[in-house]
């Protein structure tokens, strides 16, 4: 009796399980269809959660059913103009809520639309950063601050130690003198006459004159070297990384993780002397819909939107915009003429040669020459970045690709037809025509 009872129970449980499983399976198949339909038809303008070109879709159907009286949401999706034509208040309000007009989806059946909304209401959000792969891409301000503090504290340890040792030396010196005096008193001698600090120092120096003279010469030379080095650093800005109005801007995130090409933002690099700082509308090409990930990032994106005159609630540009004033990092003196177009378009120089690997940097920085030399494919140089020595060195090392641009056609013709010239320039020790040999060391090439 007992046995059969438990058997029945188990059967009932199995039945129930299989039933619920099958229901789940049906549901998921339906949601799958809805997902595909959503992605091909709706996702260009609507997000599941959050505003986009069109309003958020989650909860949209329920809201429609609660508010609209004259028409249903199917009519709207298939042809929104028909829905407005019924005179329904909610449909009219929806049509006026966005500056963009919705596309017409007459080819969708009521079942399709149901499937879409079923998918939308289920808890899957297709947008949003994908897990750990993106974790390294964001700048963690708190982590950065902690690291800086850790660096600062290690410095402080040395200063405190130095102070401590100085105090110990002075104290021991004073103590020694007192002990000597005490000893003399004990032995019945007079106390040593009180000397000024200068007399003590001079006496000590005279007694150790050999060591002191050697030390003096060495320290004089050291100070001289320091002074010369310091003078050499005037007008040289390695690691200059000024704070920018968009605090969290990260080249690593944009050019590294999202693989946006350098030219998308610095788009005049092949057309102009300057590489170009993107105007706000270039930022808005993505940040119209990308809100930012971290807390500071969201604030920064909001700042960009304010500069663009964008109102997120109306999803429209409503205010007058204003350009973002970025701080210029790579500054050449007024008497130097440098052209990005010449170097990038005609010369075919990679950005990395002068700017380093920006896919690992946050905001712009003048990368020191030691770091530039570590990058594969770069011409190895010794002088500090952005100095004249650095330019000249590169002009001496770099061979010109005579086929790359029509600019060198005539030179190539003469070099290849004249045996003497060919021997002089192409059969010399480096076997290439360097920029220097083409007049790249002429003063007037850069100073005019």
């Amino acid at each position, binding site marked *: 009796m007992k046995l059969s009872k438990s058997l029945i129970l188990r059967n009932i449980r199995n039945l129930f399980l299989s039933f619920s499983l099958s229901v789940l399976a049906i549901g998921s198949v339906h949601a799958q269809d809805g997902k595909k339909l959503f992605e091909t038809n709706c996702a260009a303008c609507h997000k599941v959660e959050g505003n986009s070109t069109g309003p958020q879709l989650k909860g949209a159907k329920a809201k429609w059913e609660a508010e609209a009286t004259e028409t249903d949401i199917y009519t709207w999706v298939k042809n929104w103009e028909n829905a407005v034509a019924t005179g329904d208040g909610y449909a009219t309000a929806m049509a006026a809520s966005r500056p963009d007009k919705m596309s017409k989806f007459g080819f969708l059946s009521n079942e399709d639309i149901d499937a879409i909304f079923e998918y939308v209401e289920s808890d899957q959000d297709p947008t949003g950063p994908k897990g750990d792969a993106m974790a390294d891409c964001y700048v963690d301000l708190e982590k950065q601050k902690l690291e800086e503090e850790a660096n600062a504290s290690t410095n402080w340890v040395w*200063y405190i130690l130095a102070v401590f040792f100085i105090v110990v030396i002075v104290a021991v010196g004073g103590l020694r003198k*007192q002990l000597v005096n005490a000893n003399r008193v004990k032995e019945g001698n007079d106390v040593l006459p009180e000397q000024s600090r200068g007399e003590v120092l001079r006496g000590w120096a005279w007694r150790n004159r050999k060591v002191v003279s050697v030390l003096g010469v060495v320290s004089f030379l050291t100070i001289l070297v320091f002074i010369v080095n310091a003078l050499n650093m*005037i007008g040289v800005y390695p690691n200059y990384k000024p704070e920018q109005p968009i605090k969290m801007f990260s080249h690593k995130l944009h050019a590294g993780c*999202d693989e946006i090409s350098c030219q998308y933002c610095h788009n005049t690099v092949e057309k102009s*002397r300057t590489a170009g700082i993107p105007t706000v509308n270039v930022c808005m090409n993505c940040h119209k819909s990308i809100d930012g990930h971290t807390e500071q990032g969201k604030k920064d994106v909001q700042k960009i939107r304010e500069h663009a005159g964008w109102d997120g609630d109306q999803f429209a540009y409503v205010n007058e915009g204003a350009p973002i004033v970025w701080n210029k990092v790579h500054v050449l003196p007024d008497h130097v003429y440098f052209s990005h177009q010449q170097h990038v378009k005609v010369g075919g120089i990679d950005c990395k040669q002068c700017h380093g690997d920006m896919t690992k940097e946050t905001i712009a920085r003048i990368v020191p020459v030691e770091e530039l030399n570590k990058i594969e494919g770069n011409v190895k140089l010794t002088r500090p970045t952005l100095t004249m020595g650095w330019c000249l060195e590169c002009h001496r090392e770099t061979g010109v690709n005579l086929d790359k641009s029509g600019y060198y056609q005539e030179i190539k013709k003469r070099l290849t037809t004249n045996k003497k010239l060919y021997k002089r320039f192409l059969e010399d020790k480096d076997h290439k025509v360097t920029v220097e040999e083409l007049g790249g060391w002429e003063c007037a090439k850069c100073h005019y």
Partner: protein
Amino acid sequence: MKIRFKSILGISVIAVVGAITLSSCKGDPNSPGLEYMPDMYRSSAIEPYVDYGHIRGRDNDSIAHLQSAKTPPYGTAPWYGSDESVIKVMLPYRHAAPENADKTHALWGERQSALGRDAAINDVNPIPYSDVSFAEGKDIYEKFCMQCHGAKGDGQGKIVLNGKISGVPNYADKKISEGEIFYTVTYGKGIMGQHRSLLNKRERWLVSMYVKGLQNGGKYPVGGEEVKDTTVVEGEPLEVAPADSTMNNEQE
């Protein structure tokens, strides 16, 4: 004894002050360092992206707001030489922006028309197909489009794969004409922004050619059906931006 203690204290005070002074010599990323003869660095001529009226919190009103990134005066047109084929490509675009383009794509003061897109559909690419042009279009595509639209035009660019933008269409599903591609690149559509500030007309036509190729599996359909060329029609007014920002809704 008392005097000794005082001197020790004095020396340690000096040492501490010295240590603090030394520690402040650490490299400050916000400071460019020493400058020799600033007037050789600060240009008296107008320099791009530099406004010498504001330097590190100090204002100099007499030279402020001289920044060079300004809108050209109304009516100015760039000079593209005397080559007719170049001029034909670079002539101002004559189709009006979509309705509400000022609100959706910040195209302020732009002529708007609901018929703009339809009118652009039959435009013919003024640049004839050649392998060189196609490769040039590819180069532009990879710099300006690929991050969203994907290397094969399947809408699976890196930004989409990173889950930041969704709903980028697959070109193979959207076979639109080169004229319409050009119109979309110029004025944007939906979430896609306008790209005429990044690419000039020649570059936009080249990239339209390459996108047409991507719709066709990466190969440009040479010798397709004949379409009516509406790119330049004699006697019709060309698009010129209105002087003020009032809307100029004249129809095509």
